[in-house]
């Protein structure tokens, strides 16, 4: 084996090892940081553990928005079949409306309330987050022609 070949082999081995470490790190971190989208119906059937972060998608229920004394708000998210109460301490996005689609990031507390750390609304009137569409389709409340 010539020195050049030996060096190439060593380099290839190092690259392979580094690639292995990278792949392992990526797989491990993906497992750690995957957040699922859940609908109120998913929660009702117990698919969500308290304290585990996930994205809650659905519609803001009509007349459910309540303001607290500070910046805290409460509202209810529905997919037409089930509802989940949501608590949030922060500024709601400008396009947040009762009866409109919403995605909230957070986790369930022990008392069955979703504590949101972030609330996202859609970016414009014509657009519905695919996750919300999916939640509504699964609960049978989505009309293809009517859209929102």
């Amino acid at each position, binding site marked *: 084996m010539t020195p*050049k070949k030996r*060096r190439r082999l060593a380099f290839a081995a190092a*690259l392979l090892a*580094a*690639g292995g470490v*990278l792949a392992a*790190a*990526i797989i491990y*971190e*993906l497992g*750690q*940081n*995957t*957040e*699922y*989208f859940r609908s109120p119906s998913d929660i009702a059937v117990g698919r969500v553990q308290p304290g585990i*972060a996930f*994205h809650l*998608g659905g519609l803001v229920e009509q007349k459910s928005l309540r*303001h607290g*004394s*500070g*910046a805290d708000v409460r509202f209810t998210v529905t997919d037409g079949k089930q509802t989940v109460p949501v608590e949030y*301490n*922060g*500024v*709601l*996005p*400008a*396009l947040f409306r009762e009866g409109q689609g919403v995605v909230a990031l957070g986790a369930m507390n022990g008392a069955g309330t979703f504590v949101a750390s972030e609330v996202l609304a859609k*970016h*414009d*009137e014509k*657009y519905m*987050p*695919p*996750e919300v569409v*999916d939640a509504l389709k699964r609960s049978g409340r989505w009309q293809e022609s009517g859209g929102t």
Partner: protein
Amino acid sequence: MIGELGQLALCFALALSLVMAAAGLTGARPNELNNGAATARGIAHGAAMGMLVFVALAFGTLTYAFVTSDFSIAVVANNSHTLKPLIYKITGVWGNHEGSMLLWVLVLSLYAGLVSALGRGGERLTSAALGVQGLLAAAFLLFILFTSNPFLRLDPAPFEGAGLNPLLQDPGLAIHPPMLYAGYVGLSASFSYAAAALIVGEEGWARAARPFMLIAWIALTCGIALGSWWAYYELGWGGFWFWDPVENASLMPWLVATALLHSALATEKSGAFRTWTLLLAIAGFSMSLIGTFLVRSGVLSSVHAFATDPTRGFFIMVLIVCAIGGALGLFAWRAPTLKGGAAFDTVSRETMLLLNNVFLVAVCASVFVGTLYPLALDAYDGAKISVGPPYYAATFAPIFFALLLLVPLGPRLNWRRGDLKAALRALIPAAAIAVIAGLAVLMIATPRFLTGVCAFAVAGWLIGASAVDLIRRKGARSTAFAAALAHAGLGVTLMGVAGTTLWRSEALAVMGPGDIMHVGPYTLRFDGVTQEQGPNYRASRAHIALMDGARVQTTMTPEQRIYPAEGQDMADTAIRTTGLQDLYLALGDDRGQGHWTVRAYVSPLAPFIWLGGLVMAMGGMLSLWRRLRVRAPVPAAAPQPAE
């Protein structure tokens, strides 16, 4: 009438792109084998210019329709409004799917024209590159004509348009898409040159393609920085990067383009990594295509996802498979016939560039997996997931950090065989600056973060090394200056990112007239909300006084805007910057009786994030300027001294 003119221009452009593809590829053959090759080359050049003229005409036509609010054209009716300010009528041209695809093809044609006018390689290489560029243009023109025609009519024409998403009515976003496209699509030129080099078997392609790589890289850098800046002041969250799939779609081509710039340099100067550089050029544009697919097919939920239409996604998918598959097939077939890379020592600049490439590709792979994993999982079993920022913090950040540590070493080693000791000795001042920067942060900044100390030490290391470079090698060639500038820019951005991420303070309160809020070192007094009328919106404007003791230092006015035409609300933030620190205010919702929620952030060093991007782009421009100034091709010399 005007719509038909645009449509006709697009059809002519399609015909010319096909002529260009056929003529260009014929012209790639040697004269001895094909008598008509020289003529074909002339035709390819002519067709490139002709296509540019016709695509520009189509684009001009659409712009005219937007400016004159011609609502008989569906795209205009759906995305414009008579009351919109002129600039947003113009930017509305690419604020929708059809128009943005037309812009894409316009940029592609521009690069074809540039290759034709400035192409420096052999005539066969240039001809083949034009041929490949023609194929790409034809594919995208077909895509536009069949799935995304911007000139479709509405009958009857409505009296008023539906308006443009207010989020997009912003000066930053007016130039962000053209800039980003200049980068995205600019990688098509490197792609075409790489394919041409494989067809013709010419090795000088890296030098010929370099100006186009530089233009694309500069534009991508500026485009990403602009997009991030826009997200910062427009979205009201005070963040500058959200690891949104669409952001990632622009970051991946940048990472590959950066790797390509470095690898192509080694190929050009010392003949190393010949095949690898070809592969990177193909990968770079592939990332652009994948990015386009992600953004335009509507598989993602994002402000960039316009209408969802499965046929479009399918068409782009087929296009991607053909382009990438074709290029990789060509690579597999022809690359083994090319000369292998030149040898180099373990301690050499080539090794450092190799490490640069290994790290950049690794970083790109981590972003790629994080971006596409949710889509793959959704396609596989319908599970909707998202990959959060912690994933990127754990994978992207450490690899990129390791890369930054090595950056100053590269330019100090010679090609082929370097002297590590001498390089390290030359870097002692930079190491001293790094230690001082780290210690300074340890002493000044509270709370203390180990990552913050490391980040500032590395930033000091990068900027210090660049400074040493500039002082030591006065009168050195401007390439060294350009590299030093670009590397220093990385350090500047790193400081901004670390400062904003680690030491940001935030306050949130419901405020009535006279209420006081404290955030960071600032005291703010809420002085009430007034109603204002904008050109196409109504605004609730808060008046918030920045206090200096009992004196009002200045009044800041964050707004909530309502755009009646679009039926949308939007927050308009107020930012006051000292250059070293941003005070950032966003107005929330009306709580009645003059009370509003107010959100305030203090972001230390936030402007550095985009300043660093600008410095990097300036480094690229300097290098480009030097390239374009040297008109005659310099013969590849024997081992060159470090530059």
